[in-house]
């Protein structure tokens, strides 16, 4: 009885009596306290460093400002509630500031690359190659067409090699399994950690030194597929795991073989996920530079044949030009970097949109085709 009285007394004085604590919500009082402390602390720090002393805006100001901010938050908590709630409020302020900090690098990288690269992003960048470009030619002369063609061919070939293999391995892991599945899964995990330069060294040792292949776009594609394989396999395996077991059992119960159940039920159900896996794999390797340094050295003239002779690639183009002393060359490098970044962004967003659909989602295009075939 006394306890009930005690709780009731306590509850009557607490400012948020009876409200349950929920995760992942923002209470108005807390938001006001933290926001107010942030404004007050930044004003105080600014006053301290630029008006009261002559230190000027420097790192110290931000450090002192942040400590002031935490102190103020703690003070407010102490004043309004008690020590426990004050610590809770400080923790909330810290986690929110780190959370907002996570946004900064991506925004900064994108904004800086766009700002640096957009000026020279003209049609000739895509249409002309680098062979007639002198050290001081303006950005309106020449471009990176040889590098773009090289990258498309190398990544295309790498996709042709690693996607069928990756999907087969994923099917093995998820549909067949057996004693071999555990070591294979472990190795695929380990493979995703291979440094990209080691993949380049391996292809140099195996394809060029041992088999007598030449430095070419194809050698680069082989190195890229070593890097792409684990991404495709792991993503596909996750998607295959999402296919409901009932669908497989229905197929088998109808008398279908395992092969035709996989071919006609499992793979079509997971189609969008497999597309996501392919796109993520492409995004993983499209900006890889290190293995290309060892397998295709780059070229300034167009070489559309990936099987013979050195070939350029967009990452190599950027890497080489960025290290030249001329302002114009660095400008070109930034434009190349911008194109790469845009490609990665587009691939990533596409993968997320496709991957966001549930298994078995039928696109409008496919529904039309099914309707033509009289199936839906």
């Amino acid at each position, binding site marked *: 009885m006394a306890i009930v009285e005690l709780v009731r007394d306590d509850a009557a004085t607490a400012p948020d009596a009876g409200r349950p*604590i929920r995760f992942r919500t923002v209470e108005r009082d807390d938001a006001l306290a933290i926001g107010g402390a942030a404004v007050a602390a930044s004003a105080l720090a600014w006053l301290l460093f630029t008006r009261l002393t002559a230190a000027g805006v420097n790192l110290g100001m931000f450090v002192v400002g942040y400590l002031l901010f935490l102190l103020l938050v703690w003070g407010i908590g102490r004043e309004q509630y008690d020590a426990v709630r004050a610590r809770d409020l400080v923790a909330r302020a810290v986690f929110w500031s780190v959370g907002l900090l996570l946004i900064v690098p991506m925004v*900064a990288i994108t904004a800086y690359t766009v700002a640096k690269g957009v000026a020279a992003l003209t049609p000739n960048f895509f249409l002309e190659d680098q062979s007639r470009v002198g050290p001081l030619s303006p950005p309106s002369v020449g471009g990176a067409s040889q590098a773009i063609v090289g990258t498309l061919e190398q990544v295309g070939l790498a996709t042709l090699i690693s996607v069928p293999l990756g999907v087969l391995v994923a099917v093995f892991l998820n549909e067949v399994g057996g004693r*071999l599945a555990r070591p294979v899964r472990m190795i695929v995990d380990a493979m995703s950690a291979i440094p990209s330069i*080691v993949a380049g060294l391996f292809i140099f040792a195996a394809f060029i030194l041992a088999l007598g292949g030449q430095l070419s776009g194809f050698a680069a594609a082989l190195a890229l597929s070593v890097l792409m394989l684990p991404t495709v396999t792991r993503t596909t395996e996750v998607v295959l795991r999402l296919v409901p077991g009932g669908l497989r059992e229905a197929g088998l119960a109808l008398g279908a073989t395992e*092969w035709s159940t996989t071919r006609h039920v499992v793979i079509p159900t997971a189609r969008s996920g497999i597309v996501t896996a392919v796109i993520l794999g492409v995004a993983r390797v499209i900006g890889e530079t290190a293995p290309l340094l*060892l397998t295709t050295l780059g070229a300034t003239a167009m070489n559309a044949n990936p099987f013979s002779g050195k070939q350029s690639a967009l990452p190599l183009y950027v890497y080489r030009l960025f290290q030249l002393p001329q302002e114009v060359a660095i400008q070109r490098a930034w434009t190349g970097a911008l194109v790469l970044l845009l490609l990665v962004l587009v691939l990533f967003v596409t993968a997320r949109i496709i991957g966001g659909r549930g298994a078995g989602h039928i696109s409008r295009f496919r529904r039309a085709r099914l309707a033509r075939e009289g199936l839906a």
Partner: protein
Amino acid sequence: MQPIDPTIALEGFGPGVEDRVRPVTRRSGADRWFRGVVTAAGAFTLLLMGLIGLFLLVRSMDALRAAGPSFLTTATWEPDGGAFGIAAVLLGTALIAVVALAMAVPIAIAGSIFITDYAPSRMRTPLIWLVDLLAAVPSLIYGLWGRAYLQPKIIPISDWLSAHLGFIPFLDADRAAGFAASTFVASVVVALMVLPICTAVMREVFSQAPAGEKEGALALGGTRWGVIRTVVIPFGRGGMVGASMLGLGRALGETIAITLIISPTFDLGRLTRILETGGNSIALLIALRFSESSSFGISALMAAGLTLFVITLLVNAAASVVVARSRSGAATEI
């Protein structure tokens, strides 16, 4: 219609059939092919991994035989002059990775807890996207951005640190040598690159903290911070260690961003003054020296690559074991 094979039907009802998913014992020809091909693909990945190690080993034998044990202790890299070893580059690699992790791990822990337990639902998905996107940005672009944008901003910080905290080992610096192109600058960039990997794995671990125990802690009068301190963090400890080691594996193998930022040095004194200009790493050595090496020089670089390969494999294997041992087995899925 094909008659049903009575043996299949009978075997299907044999003892213990309830716990078998597919009660098919005699497979058709198509299925035997299917299983064969798919299993071969699985076996091929094992073979491929073996081949990577084997080819690197075979190609590096020349250099390893010539250098002997001094390969591990020599700090210079003059394969054609006879003196070469990985002491300096290995030290540089470790320094970059450790400093990067020291910066990335606390942010990753707080960031992933923010995503799982603080961010309102509307903020959650965009944040997860953003972190994954950060992982997808090519390391080349990190390198460009790090050198052109970040480095000028870091130099005053390095200056301040060496002036005020120079008494701490590693943080002393010779001001005359300058602060650009240092291990520290490279570490900041590498920290940004491993941050999304660590955050993604930790988020997965923290999101599996048992809801019952969280509610229990709340019911006992705990605050949000109390719940995180007593339930979420202890629960995710193994995953936090595993995620950090996965990040370590990535940091050790990072190549092109470091190549663009650091100016290489083989002077051990300089290497250990992380704020000062000059650093080194195995991957950087391979990237810079490869095209101008003799065939013996390439063999020496293969030996360096083999070392890197073995180290990253060990770190990664240890990480998988740690993550798998922590209570949330699914945490290895990035």
